[in-house]
């Protein structure tokens, strides 16, 4: 498990999106409705950001190069505009390939078996040495 998952486990957190996460992993394909309702998993978000940045820069350079070489300013603008639309279509909707590595949220029944640690009374904790948890 990665750090985020272990932290969530220790804090006893379970996610309200558990059922939705299960929907997209257990099915071989995601329903179209899940494009809007589910959120991307963390790895997918990072991937979407990188894909967006690279695609936009590549289309900008391609547009500049083609426009300058053939001497047509509108060509540069149209190439870039097409690139922006394509990038938006690929990175903005919650496609299934962005949801391949979802976090395994803590099962609610498991969470009950590990209650949250009690916070000590303020006065008592001040006298305790910092080493104590």
């Amino acid at each position, binding site marked *: 498990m990665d750090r985020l998952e272990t932290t969530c486990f220790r804090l006893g957190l379970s996610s309200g999106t558990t059922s939705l996460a299960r929907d997209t992993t257990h099915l071989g394909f995601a329903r179209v409705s899940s494009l809007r309702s589910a959120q991307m998993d963390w790895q997918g978000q990072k991937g979407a950001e990188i894909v967006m940045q690279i695609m936009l820069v590549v289309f*900008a350079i391609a547009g*500049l190069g083609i*426009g300058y070489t053939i001497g047509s300013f509108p060509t540069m603008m149209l190439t870039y505009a097409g690139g922006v639309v394509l990038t938006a279509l690929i990175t903005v909707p919650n496609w299934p390939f962005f949801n391949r590595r979802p976090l395994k949220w803590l099962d609610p029944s498991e969470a009950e078996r590990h209650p949250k640690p009690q916070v000590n009374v303020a006065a008592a904790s001040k006298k305790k040495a910092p080493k104590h948890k």
Partner: protein
Amino acid sequence: MHSFSYRANAVVTFAVTILAVMCGMASLSDNFNSPSPTADVKVLNINWFQKQPNGNDEVSLTLNISADLSSLFTWNTKQVFVFVAAEYGTPQNALNQVSLWDGIIQSKEHAKFWIHTTNKYRFTDQGNNLRGKDFNLTLHWHIMPKTGKMFADKIVMTGYSLPEEYR
């Protein structure tokens, strides 16, 4: 990047920022252009040369303006604004510049031109100093870009002069 609207906002903002950078680079590319324009203005006739009731001299000229400004155009040029000005000095003003004609050239194909015309704007002095005056005719141009920096330059043509007496 956790929601649809967040990602949509990220794409739009980054795309517009990159667009600004592209426009800056398009403007920078204009510096690689080394233009070689030519121009020639002939004064064909002094139509009349009078002192106006308010005391100022005024002259009407017929000009033949020919120029080849096609080397000024780049891929980032929207239009070229060109004008002809008469320049001379008087005891009152060290330099007078009077615009006689202007035009807008919107494409490279129209940049090599000649025009036979009277002065579009009145050639009037501040005072009555024009008799026998020697003056220069300068062809100025402003290369107006689609994005970025505007370049302006001129060609100075000397050797013109006005008659000694009113006509």
